[in-house]
């Protein structure tokens, strides 16, 4: 790192946060691209670089293998593939970035979904020689299903196709054809070579025909201001704060993270499931009272009236309530070797609720290649995506996932093993 990396506290507080994830088939160059980005932004320390250089030399590789910066597990380094998500960080004076580098191998799709669930943006890599393959489609579909607001298609390994425009254009139009069937609106395309560094941080001299920006420039400037839902007020209660001391004798604070909307002091609110109404007396934090709260803040709310509220309840606005229901239609990504059991019972986690459910019906399985709905094949295996109907033991307070990622998402937990076996998006 060098002096230019110095950022004063004042400037530091102006920076925003962008979370992005990588996606694409095995060996398309995801980890190399992240390594390249870290290296070219001077985010790699000397001892880290020396360590991967030594490893690369020991294995007889010609160049320093930048993928080793993210492939940190022994098994990954041995096999040269990514197995689990690696989180990496870097910052420029404009933004701080949290990167989830995910595996391309189909066996580890669940780890890709993990990395993608919190991302504002997905980089989908495509090997310029091979074009779109099944994993590209699967990951693009998952990215759209997870409602990642921004997609960037990096056509990688341009060095291996002599930096030819035709190769890039072919993939670009193929992808656009496929993306028309997906639910995505912001898609960018960039031709890159992760290995050589073209168009990652520095502009490529090898592709004068490309008039767009570098990947880093795009990441620094993509508009993320409206990625949260600021309309529908939702605060799932996480924990009730009761100090039990003389200074705060009757204090009852409802602690939680805003899942949507803007709450103001004095607002009329309703508490679910009881339906009782009250008024916000105070929005409290350690640093004092604040006039309003919005996502992704963590706050403590105090109400005018003494009503019975506990973890799992939700504070909303009286005139804008989520659906209160025990019957849900859900798109599910299955993660476990043990297939989804029709009529099976699972624990599910939704906001701060922990309930049980039964799988009432499997409507269809999605064929990833064609996006066709297969209503015959209802055998849902690991890495499959399906639409299911569930009934829960208690009502949940839900919004469609499209409207709110926080109140529209659930996870399925196997009650025997406690493993997280599936991810669901409420329709």
């Amino acid at each position: 790192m060098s002096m230019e990396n110095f950022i004063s506290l004042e400037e530091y507080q102006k920076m925003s946060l962008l979370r992005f994830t990588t996606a694409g088939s095995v060996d398309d160059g995801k980890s190399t691209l992240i390594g390249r980005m870290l290296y070219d932004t001077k985010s790699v320390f000397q001892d880290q670089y020396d360590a991967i250089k030594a490893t690369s030399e020991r294995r007889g590789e010609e160049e320093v293998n930048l993928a080793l910066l993210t492939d940190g597990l022994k098994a990954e380094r041995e096999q040269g593939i990514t197995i689990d998500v690696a989180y990496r960080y870097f910052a420029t004076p404009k933004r701080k970035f949290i990167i989830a580098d995910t595996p391309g191998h189909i066996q580890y799709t669940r780890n890709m979904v993990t990395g993608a669930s919190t991302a504002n943006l997905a980089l989908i890599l495509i090997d310029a020689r091979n074009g779109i393959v099944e994993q590209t489609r699967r990951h693009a579909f998952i990215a759209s299903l997870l409602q990642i607001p921004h997609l960037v298609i990096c056509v990688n390994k341009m060095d291996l196709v002599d930096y030819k425009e035709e190769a890039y254009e072919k993939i670009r139009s193929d992808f656009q054809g496929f993306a028309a069937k997906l639910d995505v609106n912001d898609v960018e395309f960039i031709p890159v070579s992760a290995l050589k560094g073209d168009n990652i941080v520095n502009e490529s001299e090898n592709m004068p025909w490309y008039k767009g920006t570098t990947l880093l420039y795009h990441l620094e400037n993509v508009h993320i201001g409206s990625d949260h839902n600021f309309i529908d007020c939702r605060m799932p209660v996480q924990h009730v704060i009761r100090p039990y001391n003389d200074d705060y004798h009757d204090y009852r604070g409802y602690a939680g993270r805003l899942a949507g909307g803007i709450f103001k002091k004095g607002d009329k609110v309703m508490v679910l499931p009881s339906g009782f109404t009250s008024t916000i007396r105070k929005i409290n934090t350690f640093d004092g009272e604040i006039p309003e709260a919005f996502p992704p803040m963590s706050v403590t709310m105090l109400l005018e009236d003494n009503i019975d509220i506990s973890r799992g309840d939700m504070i909303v606005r009286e005139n804008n309530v989520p659906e209160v229901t025990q019957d849900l239609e859900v798109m599910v990504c299955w993660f476990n070797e043990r297939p989804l059991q029709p009529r099976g019972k699972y624990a599910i986690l939704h906001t701060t609720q922990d309930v049980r459910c039964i799988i009432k019906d499997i409507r269809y399985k999605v064929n990833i290649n064609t996006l066709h709905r297969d209503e015959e094949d209802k055998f849902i295996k690991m890495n499959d995506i399906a639409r299911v109907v569930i009934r829960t033991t208690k009502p949940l307070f839900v919004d469609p996932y499209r409207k709110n990622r926080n109140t529209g998402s659930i996870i399925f937990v196997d009650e025997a093993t406690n493993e997280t076996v599936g991810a669901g998006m409420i329709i």
Partner: protein
Amino acid sequence: MKYHINHLRELEAESIFVLREVAAQFQNPVIMFSGGKDSIVMTHLARKAFFPAKIPFPLLHVDTGHNFPEALEYRDNLVEELGVKLIVGSVQEAINKKLVIEEKGFNASRNALQTAVLLETLETHKFDAAMGGARRDEEKARAKERFFSHRDEFGQWDPKNQRPELWNLFNGKKQMGEHFRVFPISNWTELDIWQYIALEKIELPSLYLSHKRRCFIRDGVILAESDYVNMKPDEKIEEMVVRYRTLGDMPITGAVLSDASTVEDIIREIATTRVTERGGRADDKRSETSMEDRKKQGYF
């Protein structure tokens, strides 16, 4: 943009959320407090998360017996200020009782013993969640860690078989005898920590700031003179102006030459440094995957 919080506040909100989840999902959680800046920031965040109530967790310190005295003093003051319970797992006691056997030689370290004593202490007190101040940017094996990290009955980590962790839905379900490690500040970088310390004006042990100290150099690492380390004949003590980037055991934690005497100076210094903060730690240098190996065995 009006409805926008900056990235430090976003990290803060995320960590507070995680700390509150721990309080809600577990019966008997504990904060692993090492005395270093990361566990200090984590404890500060816990204070914010439950304000105006006290932090609902005790602090656990695994005392290797090789700690910097300044770190212990800081710990005791903090515990008193917060009004929380302190539990000390003592490596020295475990050695005295012959529960564990100490390494010999010049590069002897109590790291492995620390893991054994940690696991023992967690078991004796029946803690079901132990929160640590580890950050994913510290080390390549840590970069793979979940916020809620499941451990089997032996306290082991299975990196190839971690539970998928999606959105903000943390699955803390477990069988009897199993426990979780939780890392509320996973997404913070070293620079975030320092900027936040400056922003929040958090007090730190004096070791982090430049001071004069009697030191010697071993394998390129500046080590402090102490009763816990055997010097080789060709090693000689000199007075140096140093500070520490991380705090570990005295015999293995390297200092850096520095005249950074305020947090602002430190931020300026970090921006120009070329080695990671763990670069000075002999425990990480033992092999390419020493952190992963230690984590599998139950190190935090």
